[in-house]
């Protein structure tokens, strides 16, 4: 149950920052009209962000991770989420075992 003062402060800062991002979108609506251009930008946001989060880990760590990402992406064309994750995890283990 131990809680470090600095750790708590850091968690609090993260929580406040994150809550701010979640609330401000709804708040912003009052001042923002969503036209076609905003709509397109909005559509691009999720893939752009998701890719930005994982790109260094996924594509610039080693060949095993990069290839496993490709396999997971291909699996995602046909299979449900859980199967894709299982395939991705299994392939990264196999590729690492092969010394990649």
């Amino acid at each position, binding site marked *: 149950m131990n809680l470090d003062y600095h750790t708590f402060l850091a968690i609090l800062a993260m929580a406040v920052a994150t809550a701010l991002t979640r609330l401000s979108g709804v708040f912003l609506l009052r001042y923002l009209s969503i036209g076609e*251009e905003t709509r397109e930008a909005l559509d691009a946001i999720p893939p752009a962000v998701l890719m930005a989060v994982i790109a260094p880990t996924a594509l610039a760590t080693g060949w095993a991770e990069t290839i496993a990402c490709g396999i997971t992406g291909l699996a995602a064309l046909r299979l449900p989420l859980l199967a894709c994750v299982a395939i991705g995890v299994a392939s990264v283990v196999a590729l690492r075992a092969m010394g990649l």
Partner: protein
Amino acid sequence: MSWKTEFWAGLKTIAPIIVAAMPIGLVFGAVAASKGLSPFEATLMSAMVFAGGSQFVAMDIWTHPASWTALGFAALLVNIRHVLMGASLGRKLQAFSPLQKYLGVLVMADENWAMAEARAQKATLTPAYYAGLAVLFYCNWVACSLIGALLGAFLGDPATIGLDFAFPAVFIVLVMGFWKGPATGMVLIASAAASILVHHFVPGAWYIAAGAAAGLAAALFKGKFRRTAVA
């Protein structure tokens, strides 16, 4: 539509994601434990922040003692996407009371947001359906973080059984779900290139904002190009 059927419909939709998020929560807890966070601290972070991407980034840049400025700023950068997600989802919450609206977006994550958006295209998004998407998903994340932190020492290095890859794998599947043709490809390439470059040369979590901005710029550029071509 009763409250109960709507809630169950939402829960059914998010169920596979909940299962896929379990190993990710476990890994988060284990990684947090390996960085010196107590199980209580790791669980508290999951409960208060509830944003997996920013929590993993925080573990990457964690220091002793923790720097609240660096970590708060990193969380802001990683989660700035919520502003646009909320702006989009906010327009579909007419059936929500103001309190439900603000409570709702506080537990908005990539996964349940994407599913709420999909629901709103077919039917009115009700608070009950959204609760079905959010409540168990939230509890699952918090509980799995706790279990992961407690098991941390026993799990050993998540990399040996490939569990460290569960997080990128889920994100890849989510990315593929947003695929809408070559335009998405451009967004992804721009985002990945900028993210990797900035990650390599700039310390801290700037790479996520940089990647997101580059992807956004690619989308805006493409839109402008197409409109010019048509006109």
